[in-house]
């Protein structure tokens, strides 16, 4: 098996799906000739041509809406939003159109499509190149997937392309080249839905996704040296979320730490905490803890500011340590 980067896994998934299904196409800003500003689509324009890898006008609303139209017709668009920060202009099309199409038409019309967007901070991107936007999209009708490693990224993106529903696929951009992992040569997919227990443990459960899952594993390693056995769960699919795996883990460990980069208040973790508080109440040995970005409107640019904002392995280890000792 070859060890590849997260972004290479994403590129491979798109390459294979373009080759497999003539209905699949890519549309977005700079995805064509340039191969994407992060090079996720590098080489695909040359290989599949300007009709399969389409450089769109600079307008996210219509990247989404045109994708929806093409999906209604039976195509399977992969819409790239250059940064998750720029998905806001497409909010109406994603929330009011893509998410509601199947239900509102009683299943007569469906939109099989993927929205890909790099998200997350720690890359000196300031307020508008660092956002985590998953909490805005936790709404019925959408699926939300965030991979944390190359194997999952490739398998989940292939599943997303084949999924008959609109799937938001957020990619931890800080990990694009940092996170490496083994990916088999042949065809495989990873199902949308199930979370993964990526490190078993008995003292507490850490729930995370994307870059924070990568850091959570590092924190768990550090804690193990101190005799604290943290179980790490990679949520992978945020909506609809795998409640069973979450609750099962908390029932075993009795303690839950939820980690994400986005602001604490109103962030995605609230739903996980609420679920645990309601459905694992009698199993809890400690308060449900959330560790997340502070409640400021974005990741500030200056180095010391950014470091202050970002959750990192040390902060996770520290929060987990406190919780284990509760």
């Amino acid at each position, binding site marked *: 098996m070859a060890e590849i980067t997260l972004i290479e896994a994403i590129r491979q998934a798109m390459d294979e799906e373009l080759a497999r299904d003539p209905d699949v196409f890519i549309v977005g800003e700079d995805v064509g000739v340039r191969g994407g500003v992060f090079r996720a689509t590098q080489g695909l324009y040359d290989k599949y041509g300007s009709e399969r890898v389409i450089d769109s006008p600079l307008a996210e609303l219509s990247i989404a809406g045109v994708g*929806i139209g093409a999906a209604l017709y039976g195509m399977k668009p992969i819409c790239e939003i250059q940064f998750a920060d720029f998905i806001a202009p497409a909010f109406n099309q994603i929330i009011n159109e893509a998410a509601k199409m199947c239900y509102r038409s009683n299943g*007569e019309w469906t939109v099989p499509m993927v929205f890909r967007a790099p998200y997350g901070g720690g890359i000196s991107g300031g307020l508008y190149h660092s956002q985590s936007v998953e909490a805005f999209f936790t709404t019925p009708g959408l699926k939300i997937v965030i991979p944390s490693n190359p194997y999952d990224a490739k398998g989940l993106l292939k599943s997303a392309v084949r999924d008959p529903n609109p799937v938001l696929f957020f990619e931890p951009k800080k990990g694009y080249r940092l996170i490496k992992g083994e990916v088999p040569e042949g065809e495989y997919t990873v199902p949308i839905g199930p979370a993964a227990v990526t490190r078993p443990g008995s003292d507490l459960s850490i729930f995370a996704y994307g870059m924070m899952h990568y850091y959570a594993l590092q924190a768990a390693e550090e804690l193990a040296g101190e005799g604290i056995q943290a179980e790490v769960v990679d949520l992978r699919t945020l909506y609809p979320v795998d409640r069973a795996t979450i609750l099962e883990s908390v029932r075993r460990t009795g303690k839950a730490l939820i980690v994400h980069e986005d602001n604490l208040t109103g962030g995605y973790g609230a739903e996980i905490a609420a679920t645990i508080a309601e459905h694992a109440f009698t199993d809890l040995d400690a308060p449900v803890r959330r560790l997340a970005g502070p409640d400021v409107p974005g990741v500030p640019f200056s180095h010391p500011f950014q470091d202050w904002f970002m959750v990192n392995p040390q902060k996770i280890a520290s929060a987990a340590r406190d919780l284990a000792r509760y």
Partner: protein
Amino acid sequence: MALTAEIKREMYWTMLLARRLDERAWVLHRQGKIAFHISGIGHEAAQVGAAYALRRGEDWVTPYYRDLALMVALGYTPTEFILSLMGKAGEPNSGARQMPSHWSLRRANAVSHSAPVATQCVHAAGIGLAIKLRGDDRVVFTTLGEGSTSQGEWYEAVNWAAVHQLPVIFMVQNNQYAISVPSAKQMAVPSAADKACGLGLRGLSVDGSNVLEVYNVMSEAVERARSGGGPTLIEARVNRITPHSSDDDDRSYRSREEVEEGKRNDAILISRQVLEKEGVLNAKLVEEMETKAKEMVDAAVAAAEAAPYPDVSEAAYPVYVEEVRRG
């Protein structure tokens, strides 16, 4: 394609049937039998003229809420319409999930739309792109009101179609009002068709009360789109004779004289004159049509009143495609 006398009569019949259905909806609302109605009265010639220029059932349509006559031209039945007004089981737009006049008819390639205006135009651009990518021999037709052209959504949709030379026809049904707001407060150009020049596509304005004129302009646009000549923007000048919807009272913002003036240019009236002048219509034929329309509307109301509400167990589905249960 030259229209036969028979087809011209059928066009008038379609307009008339839509009109009588629409009027009945107002009655049902006054009777407290339905919660809401939004009317296409005055817009019928624009819609039917356009529909007949399409290959119906083959070409695609992303309509807006005033398009009752367009939907009837596409095969939407009177009973289906009254079922949707009442939120009864079996209405095909949404399985009684959406408000009335939020159309969808899969068998006619008429796509489900929402309430946020102009969203359907972006879908039309996407459908146009898909048609082009697949190399299909089709066009897509999308409609909206002139007020809705103020939305960035509309602009982006037309821009896509123009840049990629997509087979899309945009029809703005300009009735001079967006609820209460006159078009002079929406745009700084006299006609919505003027917006075409800034976007690099052909723009035309047509008398939307004259079904044959609309047909001609639309046929040309369809022909252009089908042969790879790209999109067209058509403004159909129409009259909204009714209030905006059953929730509205238009006396606060426009004079009765203006409404009367609109009635004198009413689509049914003008189109009838045009067709009578062409010798394809006369009083007797219209009389027969009126009788038939009344019968059909009566029957539709009776059928819809007798129909059950959907079973509440269906309300939770289908959020995802996996949950779709096909009859």
